[in-house]
């Protein structure tokens, strides 16, 4: 059971180039998220999806596009990379099943290992 897998793990781009980050989960989760993490800025939500074929903007969506054509995959695209998009990108997913109430367990986020992107 792989959980959440991100590819590639590392990538260097030149300004203006395009690329796609792939997130794949094998847990049949409905919800998927893309975050970026910058030093001192914590985790900021870029886009998210509540199901196959649906996407929504997060806190910092500009310069990114996403697609969720298959339930298990959530793609993050950069059409024209900029140095400001140098960051570590994390994908996460969680279920939409009702959590176990007072037992304290809920549909926790499962994260991928991250993709480090450098834009020169």
């Amino acid at each position, binding site marked *: 059971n792989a959980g959440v897998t991100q590819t590639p793990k590392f990538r260097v781009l030149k300004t203006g180039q395009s690329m796609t980050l792939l997130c794949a989960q094998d847990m049949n989760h409905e919800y998927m998220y893309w975050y970026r993490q910058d030093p001192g800025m914590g985790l900021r939500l870029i886009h998210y999806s509540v199901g196959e074929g649906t996407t*929504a903007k997060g806190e910092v969506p500009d310069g990114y596009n996403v697609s969720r054509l298959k339930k298990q995959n959530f793609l993050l695209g950069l059409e024209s990379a900029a140095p400001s998009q140098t960051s570590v990108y*994390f994908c996460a997913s969680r279920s939409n099943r*009702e959590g176990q109430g007072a037992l304290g367990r*809920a549909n926790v986020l499962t*994260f991928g290992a*991250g993709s480090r992107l450098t834009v020169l």
Partner: protein
Amino acid sequence: QQQVKQSPQSLIVQKGGISIINCAYENTAFDYFPWYQQFPGKGPALLIAIRPDVSEKKEGRFTISFNKSAKQFSLHIMDSQPGDSATYFCAPYRDNAGNMLTFGGGTRLMVKP
């Protein structure tokens, strides 16, 4: 838009001491209050979480204290160890709801031997 404010940004504690990290939120619809732990080069992972029907939950050296009226919850790490050195995030949300899930700004904890 949901707002989650975490403090302090960084914390240095001596081995054996108590580490305390706080999280304040605005959305009263949240019903799940987790803390995530992140080691360098890794993705965050759930550390401990609480539901709003209890005021405190303890798991080993880690305790969450929840103050519903103040809309705050905190993480206490007792007998802090160098291996606890990591970045901690709070990320309260509505379980079983597909909406934005935002994190606090993170607290970088360093436990000195």
